[in-house]
């Protein structure tokens, strides 16, 4: 390929945050007239790379070139002057101003020093027509749908930059028709010779739109390929990493005694969040949830725990129907939930380890039965020891602990409430190897003690290791339920990648 004519290129760029290498010598080349998808799971370094390309971050190593010339991009505004425009997932425009003003703000046509509104509206109308939008340019931007706002944002970016367009998850909040409309716009811009970077979690959209794809994992470049050379399975395998050991199978004996049913979700779902799913959970069972980021894994957990209450279906606990309208209902029924974003949703950073451990139990007991300090210390000490939490003192603020120890604190918090059912969302993300093993050991121990767990993880090997059943999510829908011998990385990857029929079980057989 004659890839010397890159419109924009990143050569060996690195970015380091503290001790963490967010990007490690990544090469990325963008051709004129192509749509280039950038893929990777959370923490893969996608957004860091994008921020370097748009000038929001400066690389710690390597260089960025535009049309073959090395450039130093100070800010998104500075990048704009090199012809690089960005459209973000959250529309970054002004909903309180007119469509025309959003298109031209800072560049409004003027006459005698005053803004020439007539001309601005006329120009806007002409410009919008090219994008197939027949809307009144003087109408307020906020009165239009997100899709229209997104197209206005693209029109502004192209208008002002015109060489490179970076679309950072532009479809995340659009429905199917709106996505289609956006794709038409992107396709026509591609024909005009624009170089387009496209970031999304939806593989269907990648295959529908992109010419080439670059895959990142853990800050490293995995591959850049023409999409026509790749199958979906290849792609998912590359995203999820390594070359998955395709021999691995569940470590559990296939025939486990069937235990009592604990929970039954029937047609349980929530609009715009997760499609209705039916799932039976037995005592002493670990259900692994696999799927790519954005596939509805976390949404499923949130609906189960009542953070986003379901609007469809029913749930029964020990055969009796219950209603979970809020997290407090779930807790009252003996549920526990360790969220994905530990720092934002899990720990109380400034509170002590002790307070962090007792808080869920105290919440369950209510106001009038305050645990006194001795009881708190007792509990915290007991769980701190059994979970092997390494803290200098139980009274130190939990934010000073390492990620792995914080995760153990949150686990201890729920274990203190003696839950019957525990949901863990990415319990091993971003923690060191030792703590990782500790958490996996704890999961196994809890299962053997008869607790029911749902564990969401991107680490397929890990899911395989501890799950008695695996549920696969795709496009906000539960698409497969694997058991026994089917619990192997190969089948799971297949299920994640498969588009529509045939069912993953059949293809794997």
């Amino acid at each position: 390929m004659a890839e010397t004519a890159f419109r924009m290129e990143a050569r060996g760029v690195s970015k380091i945050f503290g001790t963490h290498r967010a990007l490690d010598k990544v090469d990325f080349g963008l051709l004129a007239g192509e749509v280039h998808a950038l893929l990777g799971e959370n923490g893969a370094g996608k957004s860091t790379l994008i921020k370097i390309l748009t000038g929001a971050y400066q690389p710690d190593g390597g260089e960025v070139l535009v049309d073959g010339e090395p450039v130093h991009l100070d800010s998104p505004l500075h990048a704009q002057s090199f012809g690089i425009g960005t459209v973000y997932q959250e529309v970054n425009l002004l909903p309180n101003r007119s469509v025309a003003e959003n298109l031209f703000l800072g560049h409004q046509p003027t006459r005698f020093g005053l803004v020439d509104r007539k001309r601005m509206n006329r120009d806007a109308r002409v410009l919008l027509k090219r994008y197939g939008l027949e809307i009144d340019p003087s109408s307020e931007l906020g009165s239009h749908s997100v899709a229209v706002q997104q197209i206005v944002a693209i029109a502004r970016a192209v208008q002002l930059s015109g060489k490179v367009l970076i679309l950072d998850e532009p479809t995340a909040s659009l429905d199917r028709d709106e996505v289609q409309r956006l794709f038409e716009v992107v396709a026509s811009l591609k024909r005009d010779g624009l170089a387009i970077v496209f970031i999304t979690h939806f593989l269907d959209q990648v295959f529908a739109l992109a010419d080439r794809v670059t895959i990142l994992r853990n800050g490293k470049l995995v591959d850049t390929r023409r999409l026509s050379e790749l199958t979906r399975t290849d792609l998912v395998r590359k995203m999820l990493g390594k070359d998955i050991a395709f021999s691995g199978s569940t470590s559990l004996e296939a025939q486990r005694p069937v235990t009592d049913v604990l929970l039954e979700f029937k047609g349980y779902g929530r609009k715009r969040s997760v499609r209705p799913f039916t799932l039976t959970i037995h005592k002493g069972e670990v259900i692994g949830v696999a799927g790519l980021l954005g596939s509805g894994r976390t949404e499923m957990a949130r609906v189960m725990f009542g953070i986003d209450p379901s609007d469809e279906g029913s749930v029964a606990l020990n055969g009796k129907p219950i209603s979970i309208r809020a997290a407090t209902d779930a807790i009252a029924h003996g549920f526990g939930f360790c969220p994905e974003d530990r720092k934002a949703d899990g720990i109380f950073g400034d509170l002590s380890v002790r307070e962090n451990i007792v808080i869920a139990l105290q919440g369950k007991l209510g106001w009038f039965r305050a645990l006194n300090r001795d009881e708190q210390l007792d509990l915290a000490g007991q769980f701190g020891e059994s979970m092997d939490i390494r803290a200098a003192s139980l009274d130190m603020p939990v934010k000073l602990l390492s990620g792995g120890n914080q995760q153990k604190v949150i686990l201890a918090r729920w274990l203190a409430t003696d839950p019957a059912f525990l949901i863990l969302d990415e319990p091993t993300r971003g923690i060191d190897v030792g703590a990782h093993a500790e958490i996996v050991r704890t999961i196994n121990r809890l299962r053997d003690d008869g607790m029911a767990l749902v564990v969401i993880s991107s680490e397929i090997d890990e899911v395989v290791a501890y799950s008695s059943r695996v549920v696969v999510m795709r496009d906000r829908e539960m698409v497969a339920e694997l058991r026994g011998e089917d619990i192997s990385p190969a089948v799971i990857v297949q299920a994640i990648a498969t588009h529509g029929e045939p069912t993953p079980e059949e293809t794997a057989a």
Partner: protein
Amino acid sequence: MNRSMRPLLATVAIFLVAYAAAVFQFPGLLSTRVLGNFLTDNAFLGITAVGMTFVIISGGIDLSVGAVIGFTGVLVAVLISSFGLHPLVAFAIALAVAALFGAAMGLAIHYLEVPAFIVTLAGMFLARGGASVITQDSVPINHEFYSTISSLYFRLPGGGRLSFVGLLMIAVFVFGAVVAHRTRFGSYVYALGGNTTSASLMGVPVARTTVQIYMLSSMLACLAGIVFSLYTSAGYPLAAVGVELDAIGAVVIGGTLLTGGYGFVFGTFVGVMLLGLVQTYIIFDGTLSSWWTKIVIGILLFLFIVLQRLVFAASARGDRSSETA
């Protein structure tokens, strides 16, 4: 633009209805004499409120304007009476001081990321304290320039007088409306009130615009101080206490959203006139305590805030996008 028009139209309608009702009771209210005095008596409030409109549209607040009026009055009076400067020179000095003062507040708000409420509260104490340090007493201004200007007026048909300060206020409103709605600076002010992050990503010079907004507000407050000194022929450090709140009231009643992003300079004009009408009515009535003005203003303010919430809540419901993972 349409939905932000609604509170403005409501203000205009309320003003017309209130004025008609007042005229029905006191036909004397419908004379150019009363209307002329309306403009003269409220000139300093109107000029201050124009600056406040910009500040509030940008999503900020300026609590220092009343104190700046007091400070300007004292400064101008002392410069003329004690230092013997010509009033025009004194005005220029006062405006320069106010410009620096506003710029300093704008810089603090932007670079120190301190809420405008706190910065301008500090500014209020500074200006009021500064005025009292210059003098504790009322300083009379006896200069022929003052008497000339104060007696300048156009005779209106029907015996009313359109005074110089009344005209000045109208000029400031026209200037404000043009700047707000027809210049890039004006669009930047609305942009800041809409979403500061978006504005900066779209290339709005946020720092410069913030500084300019508070400079504009302080300089207009200074101009209002000059007008106030013309009106009273004196400078007094405790003059115009609480005017910042009247100005905020007039701006909000005029249909500007207190959270920023929406509003009209013309609306503020109607707001000031509505406040003036309430005051005039109570004077005409004669039996009501002047504190009733405050009660009516309070009720009006409350009404408008509720109205704005309803208008904006109703139209925002449709276009809220779903949350995403």
